[in-house]
Structure formats: structure tokens, C-alpha cells
């Protein structure tokens, strides 16, 4: 805060006011916590654990302030100060919120569609020899094409930009999830299937109660990979086609040379994507609870 006070004198007051509030809030929270931690052992442990990384973040933020608004070593407008970015975030909050919401809808739609299709094709190709004979070559041929390479075709073929974006995201998710579902199903330990057969299991039980659960760890690797490619496809699709979402906001802000907004969008994207990944991790921990102590990622 002291540093901010020192460097921000050169800026107009309206632009730096909100950063004051942010820093003040952070300071108030940390002071509050340091008072409370006297009585709470678990909080004290948590704070002890988190202290180095929070301190590092504060130092980095301070350095950034010093370099940008302090010494002005970096050329404007490409490198705004943290205060400036916060200011553009607040000024444009309605549009940013709207963009995030549209991105979320697009991502969830495409991801869900892709995963659902991939699970069906993956289980079929992994289990049935006929499906593998015909499906594998197609998968190996079409799968590796980056989904974004389909953009020119998708724009022509699809009736709406949103629909084509959903399709592209689904396609980008479909390949890794299918591939790893196939591999998981096909590599089910034969002895599990033998045991199930001698217990009187029919085909349905063998597929859905032995092969699919046995393939779950592999399927989850596919889900994570698919999530990664879906982020990429989402941003590209929004940049070139769809007229909403964070990707669109990014290129729009860049068009106006408002780099504060570009950074604002990047920060929101980081929070947005890492939240989604965290949700998937939580789901994984729940579904693969039986692996606890076995997996380390």
C-alpha cells in the first residue's frame, strides 16, 4: 500500500481509487485473520501454510506496480499497472460478466455434447470387435485434426455461429475422450471379466459394471485432456466467429488498444478455467474414491 501510495501520485485519482479499496480490503482481511488465528489452531496452520505464496503474490504485485506506474519502464498502453487493470475490470464489469456467462454456456454445451458422444463411441469401439475394425481407422484419421482447422468448413455448413462453435468444441473434446475410453475399456483386466462371468454376469453387466468402472481412471485422463482442448477451441471460435464471450472480448479490447481490458479478460479467463478444472478434479475424487492412495495427480 505504501508503494502504491508512492507510485500512484502520478495517476489521476479516479483510476486508482478502486485499487486503494482492494489493497485496503486485503490488508483488513489479513489483519483480521491474524487476530482470529490466536484462537483457532486450524486457521493458524492454514495461514502458516499459505503465508509464503501469498507473500510472493504481494511482492510480485508490488514489483509490477513499481515497474509500470512507478518507473514507467514498460511501454504503455501494452503494460498497464495493476490499478489500471482493476479499473477497467470494474468499468466494464457488465460486459465482462455477460462475456463470461456466454463462454460458460458455450463451453458447457460443447463439452457435454462431446463427452456424451465420446463415451458412446468409446465404449462401442473398445468393446465390440466390429466397431473397432471400422471405428479405429476413422478415429485415427479424423481425430488428430485440430478442431480449429474445421472452422472454415463449420462456418459454411452450420446455420449459426453458436451452433458451429458448440460443434467444434464437442469435436475437440470427442477425440481425446474417445481415445482414452477405448484404451480403458480394451485394457480391462481379463481376470475381472472372467470372475464376473463365473458369477453369472451377462453382457450388460460386463460392459457397464466391469469394463466401464475399470476404464474410469483412463476416461478421466481423457476428460482432463478434452477440457484443455475445449478451452483452446472456445477462445479461438469466439475470436473468429461468435460475437460474444471472453475470446471475443479479448480481440475486441485489443482492437481498441485497451490493454487494461485485455489483461482483465485474461485474469477472468484464468479464474474461470481453473474453477472449471477444479470442479472436474472434485468430480474425479468422488468417482474414483476407490483409488484413494493409488493416484497422485
Amino acid at each position, binding site marked *: 500500500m505504501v508503494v502504491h501510495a508512492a507510485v500512484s501520485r502520478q495517476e489521476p485519482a479516479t483510476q486508482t481509487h478502486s485499487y486503494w479499496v482492494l489493497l485496503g480490503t486485503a490488508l483488513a482481511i489479513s489483519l483480521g485473520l491474524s487476530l482470529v488465528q490466536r484462537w483457532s489452531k486450524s486457521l493458524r496452520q492454514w495461514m502458516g501454510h499459505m503465508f509464503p505464496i501469498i507473500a510472493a503474490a504481494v511482492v510480485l504485485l508490488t514489483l509490477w506496480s513499481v515497474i509500470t506506474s512507478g518507473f514507467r519502464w514498460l511501454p504503455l498502453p501494452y503494460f498497464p499497472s495493476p490499478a489500471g487493470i482493476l479499473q477497467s475490470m470494474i468499468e466494464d464489469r457488465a460486459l465482462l460478466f455477460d462475456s463470461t456467462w456466454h463462454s460458460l454456456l458455450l463451453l458447457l454445451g460443447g463439452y457435454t455434447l462431446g463427452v456424451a458422444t465420446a463415451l458412446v463411441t468409446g465404449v462401442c469401439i473398445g468393446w465390440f470387435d466390429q466397431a473397432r475394425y471400422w471405428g479405429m481407422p476413422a478415429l485415427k484419421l479424423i481425430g488428430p485434426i485440430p478442431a480449429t482447422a474445421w472452422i472454415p468448413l463449420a462456418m459454411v455448413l452450420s446455420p449459426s455461429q453458436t451452433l458451429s462453435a458448440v460443434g467444434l468444441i464437442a469435436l475437440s473434446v470427442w477425440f481425446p475422450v474417445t481415445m482414452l475410453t477405448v484404451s480403458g475399456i480394451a485394457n480391462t*483386466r481379463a*481376470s*475381472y471379466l*472372467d*470372475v*464376473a*462371468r*463365473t*458369477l*453369472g*454376469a*451377462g453382457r450388460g*453387466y460386463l460392459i457397464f*459394471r*466391469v469394463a466401464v*468402472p*475399470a476404464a*474410469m481412471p483412463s476416461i478421466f485422463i481423457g476428460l482432463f485432456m478434452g477440457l484443455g482442448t475445449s478451452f483452446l477451441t472456445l477462445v479461438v471460435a469466439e475470436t473468429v466467429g461468435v460475437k460474444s464471450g471472453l475470446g471475443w472480448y479479448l480481440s475486441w479490447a485489443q482492437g481498441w488498444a485497451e490493454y487494461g481490458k485485455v489483461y482483465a479478460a485474461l485474469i477472468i479467463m484464468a479464474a474461470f478455467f481453473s474453477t472449471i478444472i477444479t470442479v472436474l478434479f472434485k468430480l474425479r475424487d468422488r468417482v474414483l*474414491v*476407490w*483409488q*484413494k*492412495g*493409488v493416484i497422485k495427480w
Partner: protein
Amino acid sequence: MVTITAPDVVREPSSLRARGVTKSFVAHGDSAVRTLALSDVSFSVEAGELVTIIGPSGCGKSTLLRLLAGLETLDAGELLVGNDPIAGPSAERGLVFQDPNLFPWLTVRGNIQAGLVARGVLHAKQRVVDVFMRLVGLEGFANAYPHHLSGGMAQRVALARALINHPRVLFMDEPLGALDTFTRMNLQDEVLRLWQMNRMTMLLVTHDIDEAIYMSDRIVIMTPRPGKIDKTVSVTLQRPRRRNSPEFLKLRGDILEHLHFAGKAPAVDPT
């Protein structure tokens, strides 16, 4: 000790007949070369009998069990359960492997009731699951996952899972082979108790001669390459058997002698 009479419809144990069973496998991916795993194997097991197959590795004893369980098809010969030829796997013929092969994604309870779920009768038999959990002494572990279990406990779960279907025949492929000596001896008694309680035919493959003598009514000795039946020994000792009685030790000595494992004879000077 809990005394439980099986509450399910008890199936009568079945007899087993093998006549001229022959089975070969493709060797190392070269389809032209086939290794003969079993050659002209014939034997029979009476309903309710406990028979052990012993023999060195490579004698085809595991192959024979897989054929009987219906997991492999034979090249020549005939395999009958009761009067019916074996066409494929069935819940009437249970199989327990050396590796318990518990489904890691199911809890202990989930594993034990797997057979009921597979046959679509779980709803009608919820209570049976509890009975079998108690039967193998695992009431406290209903919600534990398999990787938390010791080897002995895992094998108990595998036993309960196989028994819950009330098989007419239970095949066991070296079920206690991976356990330490004390756990193994405990589980031998446990298996005997379950066998006597559940009225079923049991065919056990082992490489442990003591285990064979301690448990079975008859011992089938097999020799390798190709797998053949060498000799059948009846064990007439009263149960419970004593592992250190003179009769037990004599039988053990005879079998070791027969398998040429009694120990090297002192070298004779050729001159």
C-alpha cells in the same frame, strides 16, 4: 462362531466328469506352433466331494479349471457337470483365483453382492448379503475398499462373493497360495467349514502337498508337458486332521517320493 444354514434355495452339489480332455494353445503368437496343455485327461469327482489337483507348474491344472469353469473351450473330449456338457461360464460353477481379483471400484459389500446384482436378484436377497459377510467374518468392513484389505481378508471376500450364488461346484485355483503360512492354515479350516456347511462339490488346485492332504477326500497328481493325470490318491483320514499325525506324515512322504521331491539319494560311486 455363527451357525448359519444357507437361507437361499440350496442347490444340490453336482458331480464332474472329464473324458479324454485335450487342450492346446497357440505358442507365443506363432499360430503354426501349438503347445499341448492337456492331453487325454480323464477323471471324475463325486457330488459333494472335495478333490485336490496337485502337480508342478506347467501341468495344465489351471487350464483344466478354466475349462471346467467354462472360460475356455476344449479341443477334444468331454466335460460334464452332472449330466450336462459345459457350454460356458455359469453362476452354478464358482471360481476363486489365487489373486482375489476383487473389483477395486466396489466396496467389500459391493463385491460380495456382485453375483446377485449380475443375476438381477439382489433386491430379493438383500439379507443374504449380511449373512455371507458374517459367514466370512467381515461385518465390520462392509464399506471398505479392496486396497485397504490384507491378503487374507481379500481372499475371504472373494470366497464370499463366489459362495453367495450357491454354486453346485466351486473351483479354486491356488486360492491360498499367496498368503503367509499362518493365514493359510487358518483359511484352510475356514474353507473346510464353508464346504461342509454349504454342501457343494469342491475342486481345488494347489502346489502345497500339506494343504492337499489336510483338506481333500482325494488327491489327483498331474505331470507336465503335456499335462496328464499321473495318479489318484484317496485320503481316508478322519476330519479334523492333524498335520503332525504319523498317517499324515506317511502320506506326505509317499507323495513326495512319487513326485521325486523326497530329496536326492546319496550319490552312488559308479566304480
